[in-house]
């Protein structure tokens, strides 16, 4: 049974904004994502060249080798706009807060063997700087990327990476009793320890890479695509034998985030690759080149954590990443 409340009906004169109607092909009710995503960025009639890049327009499609007829094909399958984005993250964070509250009540990350705890300090905490680097790279895409579809989602990714850096830092504070000593030590590791220099070097090279789409591929597809499964699945599983299970709920956020965000990353790169052979060739080249670099950068850390099994483990993840690339239309 249904009940029906009578309301005065007034015929709307149009269903959505004209730019949205043009894009979805008719004046019909549009999603909130479409209404607040399409065409927000100016594409012409610019007044002044940026003083910081006088050879280009304020927003300029020529900042990447990727060429798209319509930049709004780079849609986000999660259909995030600000409201749905913050509500999703706030829900995910609720679970993480419970995990922290539980761990904090017990005063420390209980049951982890001292050797493994040291390993966690070594492999996990310096990653807060990697996340900060990923924040910078995505912020750069938000800044110089083209079109409101990609830049909007890159903004969310920017804040995600700051959030994840803060989750990692809080794990450090949990382990060091709130003194911050673990974080200072992790920064030294990031800056000086031989095993970490490959990754730091790669990140610093990305900071100055001119093509933002290359940065997108290198950071969000390749480096994350190898690092997240290796660290948050591989290392986490290796820790189980050493009582590391109590750490897992604290990094659950990262795994959920990675699974969700990969859908976006794959959709963006897939859409660009489908548009032209030239695009696919650029994207494949970047993926291949950065995959090799990511492997070299992560192998020393994996070796520190996994010992002789590191090479086999990393190659399994490399194979998974290659399969993922092929699935979205890249030749690697």
């Amino acid at each position: 049974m249904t009940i029906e409340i009578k309301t005065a009906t007034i015929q709307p004169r149009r269903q959505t904004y004209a730019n949205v109607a043009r894009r979805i092909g008719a004046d019909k009710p549009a999603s909130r994502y479409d209404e607040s995503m399409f065409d927000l960025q100016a594409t012409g009639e610019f007044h002044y060249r940026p003083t910081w890049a006088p050879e280009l327009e304020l927003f300029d499609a020529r900042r990447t080798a990727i060429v798209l007829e319509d930049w709004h094909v780079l849609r986000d399958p999660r259909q995030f706009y600000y409201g749905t984005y913050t509500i999703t993250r706030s829900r995910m964070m609720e679970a993480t807060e419970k995990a922290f509250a539980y761990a904090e009540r017990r005063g420390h990350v209980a049951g982890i063997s001292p050797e493994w705890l040291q390993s966690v300090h070594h492999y996990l905490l310096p990653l807060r700087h990697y996340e900060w680097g990923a924040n910078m790279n995505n912020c750069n895409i938000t800044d110089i990327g083209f079109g409101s579809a990609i830049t909007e989602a890159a903004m969310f990714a920017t804040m995600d990476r700051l959030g994840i850096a803060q989750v990692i830092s809080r794990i450090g504070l949990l382990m060091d009793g709130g003194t911050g000593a673990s974080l200072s030590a992790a920064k030294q590791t990031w800056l000086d320890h031989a095993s970490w220099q490959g990754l730091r070097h790669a990140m610093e090279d990305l900071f100055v890479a001119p093509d933002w789409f290359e940065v997108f591929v290198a950071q969000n597809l390749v480096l994350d695509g190898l690092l997240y499964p290796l660290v948050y699945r591989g290392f986490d599983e290796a820790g189980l034998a050493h009582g590391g299970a109590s750490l897992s709920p604290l990094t659950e956020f990262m795994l959920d985030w990675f699974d969700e965000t990969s859908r976006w990353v794959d959709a963006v790169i897939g859409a660009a690759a489908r548009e032209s052979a030239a695009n696919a060739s650029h994207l494949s080249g970047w993926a291949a080149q950065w995959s090799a670099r990511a492997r070299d950068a992560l192998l020393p850390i994996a070796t520190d954590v996994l010992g002789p099994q590191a090479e086999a483990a990393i190659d399994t993840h490399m194979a998974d990443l290659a399969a993922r690339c092929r699935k979205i239309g890249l030749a690697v």
Partner: protein
Amino acid sequence: MNAMPPLPKQRKLSLKERYAHLTRGLGWETTYQPMDKVFPYVSYEGIKIHDWDAWEDPFRLTMDAYWKYQAEKERKLYAVIESFAQNNGHLNITDARYVNALKLFLTGVSPLEYSAHRGYAHVGRHFVGAGPRIACQMQAIDELRHAQTQIHTMSHYNKFFDGLHDPRHMHDRVWYLSVPKSFFEDACSAGPFEFLTAISFSFEYVLTNLLFVPFMSGAAYNGDMATVTFGFSAQSDEARHMTLGLEIIKFMLEQDEANVPIIQKWIDKWFWRGYRLLGLVSMMMDYMLPKRIMSWAEAWEMYFEQAGDALFEDLSRYGIRKPKYHEVASKEKHRLSHEVWSIFYNYTHAAAFHTWMPTEEEMTWLSAKYPDTFDKYYRPRFECWTEMQAEGKRFYNPTLPQLCVTCQIPMGFTEPDDPTTICFRSADYKGERYHFCSDGCKDIFQNEPEKYIQSWLPVHQIYQGNCGGAEVKDVLAWYHLNFGTDNFDYEGSPDQKLWEEWQAQKATNPV
């Protein structure tokens, strides 16, 4: 395996230190790439920063808290937006003329929120200090929020009223919208320090009460539940943005004495640029709101003259004085809105909102609020136009106006000391003559001529054939402005006809 020494025994961190670890502690000095290549834009404006660590975080917000608070606000806001649509909330506004203020807002202001989002992302990437970068990133995503929630809030109005259907397209093309567009592109094309002086300080801190607040208060006074809910929801974001504005200016001033004259010049420029932009708000406040909040002159006195006095007195210890030409703005406060509304009345055929002549009751209000100017200069003009209209000879200005190269407003402002003479200024540069509405706009041009000779001036563009054709109708089609629907007077518009039908429906039972 790494040889990590045991951690030294230390005391627990204070909240401030903890926040530092969670934010600025994440950054590092790069060595594989030189710092000046990673952050290439922080020196060319001449601002000297010796110690980025001296930055005081204006608010301590980590992402977990940010997501939580903002998600809570979003849930509430969207509940109201939905209920507003479900209950045809647009029927409860004071009068359909009010919607014209929303048209101005959605086409003129909402796109600026988006531009701010991108501008703060630029600074959020390029400042050297991680602390200020995070504050800028938070504002970048907040501004995206404002652009998106405004589009969602007004979406319901777009279904029932004209002129709201293509805001971004119009913003980039329509003649009077080049005023806000060029304002923001001026800021975004500047270096990171000038951008923050322009937007965080001059715009958000000094002038926000004269831009954002009048629109939101206008919504509250005129029964627009949806927009005012957005306004309340954005209030705490705006408070953070204002705090950042004051913090950044103090930070720059404290870092090096040589920064002071550079910043003073920017404050002068962005005060005047912002003030000219507010001309659109002045007419909204005095003419477009069926139920008015306060007059433009009162708002200027309260929010600039009084609040500004206190602020600049505080900044005088750094050697900063009040912005140049603030006294001109104060002289103009009794005529600004009348002059701007007259321009739009002249060009109503080319505007994406409706105009009208004030009713006798409204003229009484204007006389009371502007005792020295309204009856003397503007009432006779408006009465004449009203009479002409009654005789079927409604006055239109058929020629395209000359625009000020800097602010891009038609040259309709009067001399600071003579409200009966139009103010013209000009300057020669590289063999061309450029025209300005004021000394303020002329100064801005002369300080950066290479920038302003690039201005995309709508009237020039029309004459150059870049705007769809030579006839008004061609240009309006290029604007996506529906002739006979979106433009002309409110009287006789489809908006008015439908509004009256809805009111009649509300009052009677269906047969």
